[in-house]
């Protein structure tokens, strides 16, 4: 039982969205589909759903072409959340489920059941426009699972959720997996991937750059990290003196340090002792998915979510700056 994405090509005009994209999702797993914005994740999901057609390549679920499978095989949570704003929640949940073939009575019962499971039974009688963004997201997730699909495709399901709802969603994922469902989701949150996914595929410019079991990928990376905390010193400027070592992720509490292949973690600890600082935490871990992502894609997965580095303006005179911003005649 697996979902096989077999060398998909897709172009939009002159833009290549998918370029021989290929990977396999083992059935009954939670699968992380990772990539920067525009890498081809949404296009792939739409092709799996049958909403788009690939120029070349096929998608099969348990050996059957996805294009002949009933729509109810799939549950879909799109990246762009959307509900009928003025429609009562339970009505629209029943509406979507009935389109997938559920009888109206059963659809309403299932809707109320899942609203209760997500601890929001009171939302059933409200209009969607009255709900918070997080609650709308829960309703959309319920809409995706109400008809009990075999495969759930979710585009950025954790975006915009508070930590409580993220935890709730994670729990729901694991429960669905335990029931034998296959879950595929895209995200920029690598911690979530590490916590939930057994397998991943990292995609860049329409191609899979690395894929497989998370454990295998991390081990194959051959890199290790050191997480260190030093009393009264969060900048760790002295780390520059250690060859083959660099700060990956600075932090007030703990700083993550990347080690080149062959560099032992002891080198960092020895440097700290030489410096005479007081080390309060020291931990050696395998390479993070984030680091693996950067290594393969060339930039962090959430780079688009942060400001670009500030650049110095050559002319400090504000008046001149404004004038120079105007387009040349």
């Amino acid at each position: 039982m697996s979902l096989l994405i077999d060398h998909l090509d897709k172009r939009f005009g002159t833009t290549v969205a998918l370029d021989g994209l290929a990977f396999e999702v083992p059935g009954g797993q939670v699968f992380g589909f990772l990539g920067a914005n525009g890498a081809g994740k949404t296009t792939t999901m739409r092709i799996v759903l049958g909403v788009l057609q690939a120029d070349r390549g096929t998608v099969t679920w348990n050996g059957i072409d996805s294009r002949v499978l009933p729509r109810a095989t799939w549950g879909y949570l799109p990246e762009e959340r959307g509900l009928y704003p003025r429609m009562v929640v339970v009505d629209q949940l029943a509406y979507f489920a009935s389109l997938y073939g559920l009888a109206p009575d059963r659809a309403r019962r299932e809707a109320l059941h899942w609203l209760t499971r997500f601890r929001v039974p009171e939302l059933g009688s409200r209009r969607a426009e009255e709900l918070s963004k997080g609650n709308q997201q829960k309703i959309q997730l319920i809409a995706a699972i109400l008809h009990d699909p075999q495969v759930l495709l979710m585009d950025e399901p954790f975006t915009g959720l508070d930590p409580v709802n993220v935890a709730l969603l994670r729990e729901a994922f694991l429960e669905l997996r335990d029931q034998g469902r296959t879950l595929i989701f895209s995200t920029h949150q690598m911690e979530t991937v590490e916590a939930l996914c057994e397998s991943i595929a990292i995609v860049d410019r329409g191609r899979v750059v690395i894929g497989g079991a998370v454990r295998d990928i991390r081990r194959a990376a051959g890199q290790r990290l050191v997480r260190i905390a030093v009393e009264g010193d969060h900048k760790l400027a002295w780390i520059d003196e250690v060859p083959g070592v660099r700060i990956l992720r600075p932090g007030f509490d703990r700083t993550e340090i990347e080690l080149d292949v062959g560099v032992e973690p002891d080198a960092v600890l020895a440097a700290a002792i030489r410096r005479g600082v007081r080390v309060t935490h020291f931990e050696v871990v395998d390479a993070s998915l984030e680091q693996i992502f950067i290594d393969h894609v060339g930039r962090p997965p959430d780079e688009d979510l942060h400001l670009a580095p500030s650049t110095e303006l050559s002319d400090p005179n504000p008046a001149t700056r404004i004038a120079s911003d105007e387009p040349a005649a």
Partner: protein
Amino acid sequence: MNADRAPGRDEPLLPNAGIIARREYGGLVRSRLFFVSTLVLTGLAMFVALLPIVAKLVDRESRTTVAIVASDPELLDRSMAVLQGLLDQTGGGFDLVVVDDEQDAIARVSDRELDAAIVAVRRPTGQLGFSFHLGETMGQQQITNLTVGVFGVAVVDYVAQNPASSFKQPGVEVFRALGDGNGGSQPFDASAFASRLIVGAVFGFLIFITIVIYGMWVAQGVVAEKSSRVMELLISAASTRQLVIGKALGIGLAGATQTAIVLAPALVVLVVEDALARLVLGQGVGLGSSISSLSPGLLLAFAGFYVLGFALYSLIYAAAGSLVSRPEDLQIIALPLSIVAIAGYGMGLLALTGGITGFIRIASYVPFWSPFVMLTRLSVGRVEPWELLLSVSLLVATIAIVGVIAIRIYAAGVLLYGQRPGLRAYVEAARHG
């Protein structure tokens, strides 16, 4: 780019199109907009239905008063008798009054107390002379009526003066052109024709406004689903064919419901129109009810052309709606289609009032116009059976072709966000989906 073209996926129209139609219908008829617009249109229809009575009431108040001044009593009596008799036949509402003095009559016309004065004199040669002194309220038709009237006075006077005359009243026969066919082209008397004119105008207006307004609602519904992003869920749950046809069906039924609600009280008014007129205007003032023109065949034609016309326009409106992401862009893309519909409605009105010219006849076969033009032609009763058959056949064939193209464009369009695809993209979408 079309999920519907996926090989082998078996997706019948039902039940999903029915589920979608039910949601669209329920959402629309329960909306405040539907309630208010139904109320306004019902009031408007009642007003139109009552219009003949109102017109009669106003006409009764506005009569034309003409003074008759004659050079001798015999001429005066003859002028009064003949003119009164002839002018009553015109239905123009003339009141004739006798004024003794010519200058007094002219002064009263100047003072707008009288609409006109006719001064009749017998000249020494025996010839009669008539002078018309007209006020500003006299139109050309009324002057013609008065001219015919005084000619009648002259004839009667001549006969009276020459009893052994050889004058013979001419025989008059009236022939009406019946067209080149038989059946379906029956002449009507004036009142029946006027009645059909009213029914045709009402039906033409209703079918136009319903098709355009509800067609736009189809487009607006598609844009709303795109802009609220609920479209992403819909296209993964149902095929584009089910989505488009379900939406058009639901909104079309809502339109039909509103039309029925709007028409019902107006039809009741038309049924009791004659009795109502007698009540308001007094006994002896009948209207000749407009309901007599509402044959079951005409009602069936209205229903049929509504269904077919709406099907054609709503498919295109759905495709148009899929190509824009924001409601404010919809007017621009829907405008050409609205202009086509307005042109059809205009030609429908011409068919009612300006006769069936060659161009109007051809327009009544053109699928985008036939729902308006053929319907109004049917209202005034000048359609051959083969013409109706041709018109409906072309309309059905066009719906089938446009349906395939519109659904393909819709399938490609609903996934386009924030893009302005060029004409080539539309053509590609229509060709390949």
